[in-house]
């Protein structure tokens, strides 16, 4: 399973979001590859789920992968909810 964490440059909020997602996946006992990337490269990448902020969620919606908007990049509750709603866990 592949999850993308997307932000403007790929090493700030997306990396923080990846850390949160990794913690949640570990807690749930789910094996998945989480990759942080920037908005420029996200569109061309294959993924089962895209996690990002509200702005980029609008831009990335309508592609192959479901997109979930996260308000607090460090919130395990918010990320867990997004994973459960969009993936077959």
């Amino acid at each position, binding site marked *: 399973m592949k999850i993308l964490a997307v932000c403007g440059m790929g*090493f700030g909020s997306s*990396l923080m979001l990846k850390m949160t997602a990794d913690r949640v996946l570990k807690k749930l006992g789910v094996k998945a590859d989480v990759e942080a990337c920037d*908005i420029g490269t996200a569109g061309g990448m294959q993924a089962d789920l895209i996690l990002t902020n509200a702005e980029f969620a609008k831009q990335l919606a309508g592609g192959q992968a479901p997109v979930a908007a996260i*308000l*607090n990049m460090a919130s395990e509750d918010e990320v867990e909810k997004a994973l459960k709603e969009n993936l077959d866990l």
Partner: protein
Amino acid sequence: MSVFNEKFIAVEKKIDSWEEAITFSGNLLLKEGKILPRYIDAMIENVNKLGPYILIAPNIALPHARPDSGVLEEGISVLVLKQPVYIGGAEDKPALLIICLAAKDAHSHIDLLKTISSWLSDESLVNQMLEVETKDELNEIVRKYYI
């Protein structure tokens, strides 16, 4: 050199634009030799170009730019505003806590991000930070994170 200490924190009552807030938080890094002046321009340019995505949690902004935009040493600064600014002019994106990040490359700032992440996930800590009125009060809260 120290990455984060009392030189990198501030509480401001008279900042009324998001550009001014980013510039102020960047200046805390600039005057300690962490960044070049052009890094501040790059942070503002990123918001103009990409939108208010630097809001990483409600009320919290993480302005940053690429390491090659003028980072000399890694660092963070913490600025608490007593009246909100609206990142990129978006009325639904108030910011009261500005955490300015300077990263040397795409990986070495992971520990800094973990620290910031631990703040974000602790609602009562964030509320305490937002409620301070003076730098001394802010210092009392964040000093245990000085590195």
